[in-house]
């Protein structure tokens, strides 16, 4: 075999390898281009147009974005969404941490408890929305019945207390976070706790000074995913709102719901696309802020 022919063969083999790689990942690439990048590019274009779907888009420039700035529906819904995120994220993280800490502290039946806590996350959102609708019913709801046993008059959960109810429902789904936190807590080196015990640290201090810093990257991950979910909150309030005609609709109207109404009820896909892009920018900004803050608060091993 001469050297030139060998190099040519190697190069050909490299090209073939590369081609094979591209071929194997092509389903994902095609899917990404056709079902993600192209629709995103189209929605960016539509956001700059008047596009009622049933007619061709007409160029508007930035009009949709300017209109959003003074649209009371959009501003109100954005405010409610941010408020919901501001309440539900810290509460969810706190609750998940407490449950995870209890589970790793050698309680009995950890596996069964973990499964029970994880189980609600497997329930479809539509089904859980319907279940909560009845649990929170002001007159016949189980929650108010239980409160009544203790002589506490339950509120009309889906009326004046709608925001609180939705936060409560969101807490029901912390099981997934609990599982991640438990795994992270179990990875914290035992030697750190032993050293802390020699220094005379009590349990709460160990949790604060060792556990939290050691699992802080996992907490950051969960905060970011929770934030993205909270900014896009839709299914449960949408179902509850649809099932309570005559109820206080404004209290349950979040940003994505207004966007949905504009797209599919009012036939204003251009305006809805602009709302979607603003939502994306807000999520990116909040994520960037969290990453910036994480430099001081999150500790990466090594």
């Amino acid at each position: 075999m001469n050297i030139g022919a060998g190099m040519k063969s190697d190069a050909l083999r490299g090209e073939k390898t590369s081609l094979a790689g591209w071929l194997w990942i092509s389903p994902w690439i095609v899917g990404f281009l056709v079902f993600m990048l192209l629709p995103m590019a189209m929605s960016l274009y539509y956001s700059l147009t008047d596009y009622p779907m049933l007619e061709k888009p007409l160029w508007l420039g930035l009009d949709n974005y300017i209109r959003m700035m003074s649209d009371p529906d959009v501003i109100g819904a954005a405010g409610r969404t941010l408020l919901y995120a501001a309440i539900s994220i810290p509460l969810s993280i706190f609750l998940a941490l407490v449950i995870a800490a209890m589970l790793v502290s050698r309680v009995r039946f950890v596996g069964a408890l973990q499964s029970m806590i994880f189980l609600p996350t497997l329930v479809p959102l539509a089904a859980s929305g319907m279940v909560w609708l009845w649990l929170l019913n002001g007159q016949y709801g189980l929650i108010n019945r239980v409160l009544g046993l203790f002589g506490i008059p339950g509120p009309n959960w889906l009326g004046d207390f709608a925001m609180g109810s939705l936060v409560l429902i969101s807490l029901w789904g912390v099981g997934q976070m609990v599982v991640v936190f438990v795994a992270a807590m179990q990875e914290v080196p035992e030697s750190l706790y032993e050293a802390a015990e020699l220094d005379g640290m009590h349990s709460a201090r160990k949790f604060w000074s060792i556990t939290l810093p050691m699992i802080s990257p996992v907490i950051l991950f969960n905060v970011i995913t929770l934030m993205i979910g909270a900014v896009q909150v839709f299914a449960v309030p949408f179902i509850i709102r649809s099932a309570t005609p005559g109820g206080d609709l404004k209290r349950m109207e979040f940003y994505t719901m207004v966007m949905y109404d504009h797209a599919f009820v009012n036939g204003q896909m251009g305006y809805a696309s602009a709302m979607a892009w603003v939502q994306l920018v807000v999520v990116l900004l909040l994520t960037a802020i969290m990453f910036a803050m994480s430099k001081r608060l999150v500790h990466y091993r090594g």
Partner: protein
Amino acid sequence: MGEHDHDNPLGLYTRRAAMGTLAAAGLGFALFGPRGAREARDGKIVLDYWEKWTGHEGRAMQKVVDRFNATIGEQKGIRVRYLVTAGVDQKAMIAIAGGDPPDVIGMYNYNVPQFAETGAIRPLDEFGDLSPKQDQYAQGVWPILTHPDPKDNGRVRVWATPNTGGTICLYYNKDAFKAAGLDPERPPRTIAEFDDYSKRLDRFAGGGSGDIEHAGFLHTEPGWWSWIWGYHFGGNLYDAASEKATINADANVRAYEWLAATGAKYGAARAERFKSGFATAYSSPLNGFLDNKVAMVAQGPWLANVINEFKPGLNYGVAPIPVSEALYDPAKPVGLVETDVLVVPRDARHPEASMEFIRYTQTREIAEELATAHMKNTVLSHASDEFIAKHPNRGVAVFNAIANSPRGFICPRTRVWPQFKKGMDENMQFMWKGTVPVRAALDEVQSIVQGAVDRNAAARKRRLA
């Protein structure tokens, strides 16, 4: 490793062949794969008919389709496929925008302006003998079917036919009337009487200060038509000719002040607590009216279905919803007229065949059969004696009278109607609870809605230019 493996270290040729085969199969599937056949093997034209109805309503429509297929369809070589489609108006919008619509769509009456103005549906007056005629239909129904065509200098054209219809009346519990010392054969006619009756039907725990035990009438039960009350005081919401919303007109303010006063009488928190005990779905024995919690309720003819299913012994009567004193005229009752409609989308492949099917549904026999099965009033100008005699809703004559009344009203005919409804739905709660003064609430809706109307008018001008 053999000679062949050196030349093909990754088994690339085999993989390439596999990928090529897969790609060819995918392309072949996309080009020639199964899809909704538009022509049957026996040569018949196949029409896809999207409709929202399921359950007994769906079964009744399926019967109509089956009978068409066995008779007219058999003669003319047409076969209709009934396809239940949830969220039919939204899915129709997407299918039409995508250029692959069904052949016939069963939509809601308020969809007509939006789909007509955008040219998403075909005018039905271009089908000659198959076209719907005004004298076929009840007086209040015809305006639902027509709309100006902006692409034809605003000429009013016919875009839809009614499938079934429903007017909104007052159901009242005759036994509750008797218990309160009211004449069960003399329902309230004016707003003043309405208030008086309602007060006499109210019962509260603890002699008035406690929870509501029984209510005369709640605007929020079921609260589906937050926007109708102004019409019962002589008002309206929209002047189509000038494209002006009239939401904060004086008559409407008077109507919603009456609504707010009723809310204040019950107390918002107390009424909410009371109402939260009703079923969330109206089709339930825990429906406030069926459960004898509320003595009078504004509802459509279909409520009789629920009564007959869950409480067949309920002794109820039906009357037009009361109006302000000056408006009362027994010959011209006031009430909302609604219908479901059938339309032919643009790009429908067999529009003539679609119209053959639609015309079949408009014959007296079929229209009355379907209305009876759905327990709705007729959409036709005259109901047959048999229809009235056999109809399972004992108040059908009252519902028919509203459909034929010159004072029957329909929702504002504009494509921004969803924004009217949303604004009124949301603000009705504020007015009911007294958290926002009536005038301020209606001013706010007026401002938002007029903005939407103006934007729509400007967009239409831009498009026509």
